């Protein structure tokens, strides 16, 4: 178990820079998830940590030691690949023991560690099968088992669940969570699925185009997104982001008017001048239908999605934009009816013209 530190890490492929100076610290035993849309560099960053991609510039420290130029095998890490990458010609047992054999571990130790890992992952009955004879979920377990036997300082997961069906994905998510608690190991997990990120992570690192947008606990990111990108990326359904502008200001108080809607008063730590174009963010669950005249905006219900426990209502605004409401229970709302929408509680986020959050007091 070890911590990890990235210091101003860059990655360039020829002239193209894909990772732009990432700084990050991972505590020993922490479960950190890299999340972001495809092409954001999260897998590249993980591969750089693993040692599969050279680091163009900057420093990588594992357990306080500089390993920037240390080859993959000497970094003491283990990786679980998206496609599992099991050795097709070897039995499950051999797949698990191969890494230990390579580093010349004693036979008795190998047997013991393989048995332990198989026990943890409940794959003991499969030990003599070939990967081709296993289901997707079983292969995934073997791939994780291969990492466990190495007793790595850090576990790396590269989108390990994306090849599984929804049901299995949920199961494996729970299992990986349990595994983390059981082993207490440092884990870095890459995914594009924000639900996976929210449920697994101690801390989430949101990446966009090779830049870290925000680092924080799942609820931190959910409750206090640093910019519109994180606000839109974390949470499902995504946060409603509405174009607005500052129409009045006195001291810390500003009045923000939503395009095609009404005004709302907010108190900002650093007030912005009148006329500034801002973005107003409201989570779907913070929006509620209200009586006429009491809401922020008004529009026509387009679609209602009944999930059973809650419903998602999509309301089209006069300016062509759509807002999403999450309403508990099974309300009777029919498409076509007019709805006045208000905000419950004070959960309104405000972002400036540079997409960064404007702190409220």
């Amino acid at each position, binding site marked *: 178990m070890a911590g990890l530190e990235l210091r101003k890490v860059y990655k360039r492929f020829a002239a193209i820079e894909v990772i732009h100076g990432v700084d990050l610290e991972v505590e020993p035993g922490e479960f950190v998830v890299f999340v972001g849309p495809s092409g954001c560099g999260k897998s590249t960053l993980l591969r750089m940590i693993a040692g599969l991609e050279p680091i163009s510039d900057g420093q990588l420290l594992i357990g306080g030691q500089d390993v920037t130029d240390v080859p993959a095998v000497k970094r003491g890490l283990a990786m679980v690949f998206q496609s599992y990458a099991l*050795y097709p010609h070897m039995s499950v047992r051999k797949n698990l023991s*191969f890494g230990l054999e*390579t580093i010349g571990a004693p036979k008795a130790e190998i047997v013991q560690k393989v048995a332990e890992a198989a026990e943890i992952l409940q794959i003991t009955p499969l030990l003599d099968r070939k990967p081709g004879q296993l289901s997707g979920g079983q292969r995934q377990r073997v791939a994780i088992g291969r990492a466990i036997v190495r007793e790595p300082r850090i576990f790396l997961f590269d989108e390990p669940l994306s090849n599984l069906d929804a049901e299995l994905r949920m199961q494996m998510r729970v299992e990986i969570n349990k595994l983390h608690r059981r082993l207490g190991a440092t884990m870095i997990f890459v995914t594009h699925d924000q639900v996976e990120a929210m449920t697994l992570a101690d801390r989430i690192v949101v990446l966009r185009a090779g830049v870290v947008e925000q680092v924080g606990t799942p609820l931190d990111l959910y409750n206090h997104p640093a910019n519109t990108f994180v606000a839109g990326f974390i949470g499902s359904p995504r946060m409603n982001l509405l174009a607005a502008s500052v129409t009045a200001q006195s001291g810390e108080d500003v009045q923000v008017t939503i395009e095609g809607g009404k005004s709302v008063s907010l108190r900002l730590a650093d007030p912005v001048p009148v006329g500034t174009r801002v973005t107003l963010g409201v989570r779907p669950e913070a929006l509620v239908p209200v009586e006429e005249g009491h809401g922020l905006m008004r529009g026509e219900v387009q679609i209602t999605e009944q999930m059973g426990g809650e419903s998602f209502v999509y309301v089209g605004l006069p300016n062509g934009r759509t807002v999403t409401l999450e309403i508990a229970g099974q309300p009777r709302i029919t498409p076509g009816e007019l709805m006045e929408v208000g905000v419950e509680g004070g959960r309104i986020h405000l972002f400036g013209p540079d997409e960064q959050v404007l702190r409220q007091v």
Partner: protein
Amino acid sequence: MSQKPISRRQAALRHAVLILASIVMIYPLLWMVMSSFKPDNLIFSDPMALPEALNWDNYVNGWNALAVSFTTFYRNSFIIAILAVIGNVLACSLTAFAFARLEFRGRKIWFALMMGTLMLPYHVTLVPQYVLFQNLGWVNTFLPLIVPKFMAVDAFFIFLMVQFFRGIPREIDEAAVMDGCGPWRIYWRIMLPLSTPVLATAAIFSFIWTYDDFLGPLIYLNRMQDYTVPLALRAFIDSSGGESLFGQMFAMSTLSLVPVFIVFLAFQKLLIRGVAMGALKR
């Protein structure tokens, strides 16, 4: 329903054509096998006739008809063919691994050059090669026929293997890297075991081509005790002076096909899989 008789007639026609073509193709072989059971005087006087009985004399006498027994010729052929197979499979797969997986300066140019040698006829390099081996003192030994095979000279096999290796997911290599493997171990423990179809293909073709080779041994081997089977077969006509031992030659020719048949039949499945995968997998 009305189409059925037509398609049946078409099928019959198609089969007739195919059978005819097969006969044309296989006729020389059948003729040789039949002639091997006939006495010399009947082979050309009545070439179309079936042998009256299965007369094994040609086989028994032919084996020892030349100054050196066919036991020696077969031994020579097998030594050369088996070493050539080992050399080709090892050297070509290693070269292919480098082209498919390793990063080195000028990789693309080297690969293009290697592919270029495919277009170079064997006969073009024959004379310079002979001079080279003459200077090394290798003429009249098996070395010119074996040593080059350990230097990955067969671009066709390299190409076949490169294509196959490229079809093996890179993540498997990377998993092996994480497991502590260097390039050698990846080659030996991961790539080779995963490539049995293409290795078998290369092995079978190497065996058949080397075993059947006539020109190479003809140029480099001059003493009869070094002859391979194809060279020895020609000696039936040379050594007999006025009298040609055609029956015995056909008998030995027929026998010489047996190893090729066995190899081909035994590995046919692997061969077809190897060729198909090599060609279709990106």
